[in-house]
């Protein structure tokens, strides 16, 4: 990395650490990973008042140097100079929440005892005042023996003083203690000292947190709470579908225009086929989901920043406990409705390894946005667009049923897994409930921006490569005269083999063929069905209607329903498999995931097919 002095931002979760980091670095942030572990490393550059550049890194929030999750372990290891891929920081920027001083001071005392030059940002002084709490920074400075600056991260208050203090601290000599922090005082003593200092520094205190308490009397109310929760979830999914339609159409039109342009400048043949049918069609199909994913993330980021997310986990804990999990699992599973990849990455905050593994294994059962185009085309072709009374549309009801089937499947799978492969002692559910806050635009926008970049990088790498491979499988060997590409290609031959296996659950040769490229990403199934039925690719809208008509003509209703049931369970997504391998450090669990989900998919599709036939559909 750079040779600039390194400043680490540390503090408790919910201290406003990231907001402070965002304020100091703005959009000039780099998000990477620590080698060997899957913990995000967020860093940025900053110029001190004297012009010296420094590198600033946002360490995962922690409660103490005694870690209880992989994230917290990284924080400890960086601070002790033991983290691979990170040098020992030259100074610490310690963030304390003024409204929660006694708790945050405990970690602060541990950190100051490390002996690194330290500056304390006494953050959220405005919220403290709102709660009737007055803290004296000077008393804090005297008791802690390090400079203390009062800040309001979301309003840039205290930035200049903070930079000034950092500038002085970096010059200061280190007085690192020998050993690895084992020389720390015993925890209870620190706890008491923290409370004593907090008492000293508190000038005045009225009964606190009125706003948060008032909201909680509604949000956590036994009756009103679940109603609010349902409304929030409903609004979120409604927005994902309603707001995304226009941008998705723009992206699709853009990709179609690019395909047209590429077709006109490349000679007919393999090159054009690779660029137009392979790269642009494949990557375009995935990028088209960006709007839906971003809208879902917008909601998730706002739910997190506002403090409601933990309340939702609280409300869901009971249900999750029934299947051997806890409210912790709710947050990653909610993200998985956008895409299982960030969902699986979000399981890092679950401290119990068995809980975390179970959550990873069931995350792909949440209906991600990649399933939507598959569902949309099949429902459009086979489910009549009529209402069944009360203004409820039959098509919408089937879509809802598919979502519900995924959720129920996930809960049942979790229960089964917890009794077998991820068996373990039940763990408690303990979580800090941060005070409610208005989400700040800068933090939300930066959060969305980093996620967009991650998603586009993924589309540009994994999906691009797999698209090219699948294009090659479908294109080679070239057909001899009198033969179609489908018959001659490697993919076509694999499909013939696969057909034997999937015929009993009502699938035909074209479906078998579509399932192969859909391994890379589910939504590819639609475009490969279109190819398999050799529909002209020239006109986007015409493609859709024609495909629907062709499906109607060639598939029976039981086959279509079985196809839907298959996609509720089938783990057809290379990125999910790849991220599972990374997060579980090996091939064992992704292999297990593939096995159990394909078994479920096969069973569900078969049961649907034969059930529907028995009903005479």
């Amino acid at each position, binding site marked *: 990395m750079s040779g600039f002095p390194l400043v680490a931002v540390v503090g408790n979760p919910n201290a406003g650490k990231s907001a402070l980091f965002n304020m100091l670095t703005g959009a000039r942030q780099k998000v990477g990973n620590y080698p060997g572990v899957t913990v995000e490393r967020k860093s940025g550059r900053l110029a001190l008042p004297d012009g010296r550049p420094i590198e600033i890194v946002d360490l995962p929030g922690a409660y103490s140097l*005694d870690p209880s999750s992989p994230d917290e372990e990284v924080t400890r290891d960086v601070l002790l100079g033991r983290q691979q891929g990170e040098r020992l920081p030259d100074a610490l920027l310690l963030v304390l929440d003024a409204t929660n001083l006694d708790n945050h001071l405990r970690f602060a005392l541990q950190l100051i005892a490390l002996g690194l030059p330290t500056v304390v940002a006494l953050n959220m002084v405005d919220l403290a005042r709102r709660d009737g709490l007055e803290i004296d920074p000077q008393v804090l400075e005297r008791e802690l023996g390090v400079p203390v600056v009062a800040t309001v991260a979301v309003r840039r208050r205290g930035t200049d003083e903070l930079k000034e203090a950092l500038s002085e601290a970096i010059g200061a000599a280190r007085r690192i203690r020998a050993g690895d922090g084992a020389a720390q005082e015993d925890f209870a003593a620190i706890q008491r000292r923290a409370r004593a200092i907090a008492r000293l520094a508190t000038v005045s205190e009225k009964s606190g947190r009125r706003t948060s308490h008032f909201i909680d009397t509604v949000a956590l109310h*036994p009756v009103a709470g679940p109603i609010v929760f349902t409304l929030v979830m409903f609004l979120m999914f409604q927005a994902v579908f309603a707001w995304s339609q226009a941008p998705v159409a723009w992206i699709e039109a853009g990709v179609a225009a690019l395909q047209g342009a590429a077709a006109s400048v490349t000679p007919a043949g393999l090159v054009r086929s690779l660029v137009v049918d392979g790269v642009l069609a494949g990557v375009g199909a995935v990028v088209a989901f960006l709007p839906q994913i971003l809208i879902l993330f917008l909601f998730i980021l706002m739910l997190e920043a506002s403090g409601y997310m933990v309340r939702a986990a609280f*409300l869901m*804990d009971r249900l999750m406990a029934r299947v051997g999990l806890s409210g912790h699992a709710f947050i990653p599973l909610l993200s998985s409705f956008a895409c299982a990849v960030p969902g699986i990455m979000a399981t890092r905050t679950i*401290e119990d390894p068995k809980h975390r593994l179970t959550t990873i294994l069931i995350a792909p059962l949440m209906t991600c946005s990649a399933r939507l185009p598959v569902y949309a085309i099949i429902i459009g072709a086979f489910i009549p667009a009529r209402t069944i009374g009360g203004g409820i549309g039959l098509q919408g009801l089937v879509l809802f049923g598919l979502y519900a089937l995924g959720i129920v499947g996930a809960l049942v799978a979790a229960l089964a897994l917890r009794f077998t492969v991820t068996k373990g002692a039940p763990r408690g*559910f303990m979580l800090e409930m941060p005070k409610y806050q208005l989400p700040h635009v800068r933090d939300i926008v930066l959060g969305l921006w980093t996620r967009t970049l991650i998603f586009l990088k993924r589309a540009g790498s994994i999906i691009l490569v797999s698209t090219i491979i699948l294009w090659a499988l479908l294109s080679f060997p070239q057909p001899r005269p009198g033969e179609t590409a489908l018959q001659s290609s490697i993919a076509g031959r694999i499909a013939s083999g696969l057909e034997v296996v999937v015929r009993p659950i009502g699938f035909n040769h074209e479906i078998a063929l579509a399932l192969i490229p859909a391994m890379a990403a589910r939504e590819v199934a639609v475009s490969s069905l279109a190819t398999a039925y050799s529909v002209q690719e020239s006109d986007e809208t015409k493609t859709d209607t024609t495909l629907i008509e062709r499906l109607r003509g060639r598939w029976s209703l039981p086959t279509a329903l079985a196809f839907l049931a298959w996609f509720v369970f089938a783990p057809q997504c290379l990125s999910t498999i790849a991220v599972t391998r990374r997060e579980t450090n090996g091939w064992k669990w992704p292999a297990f995931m593939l096995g159990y989900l394909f078994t479920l998919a096969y069973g569900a599709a078969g049961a649907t097919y034969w059930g529907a036939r028995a009903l005479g559909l």
Partner: protein
Amino acid sequence: MALRLDQLPFRTPAVVTAIDWSRLSDGDARRLRNLGFDEGVGIESLHGAPFGGDPLAVRIGRMMVAMRRAQAQAVSVEPVAS
């Protein structure tokens, strides 16, 4: 009169008098300590989750914490007159 935290009526300010660490798994004990549970800290049970009142939403010091009744059983509290 000492109570267990799970028996403490809602909205009754109290003080932690003892924590039976032996009743908790290592991970739960660490978490409880990290969230600031300690003898002498002010505590108040505020809400129970829908459908059975488990988990609880508890104020400990100035912080709100969600915890299950099973862990709350390890915490002894004494209501304070207010």
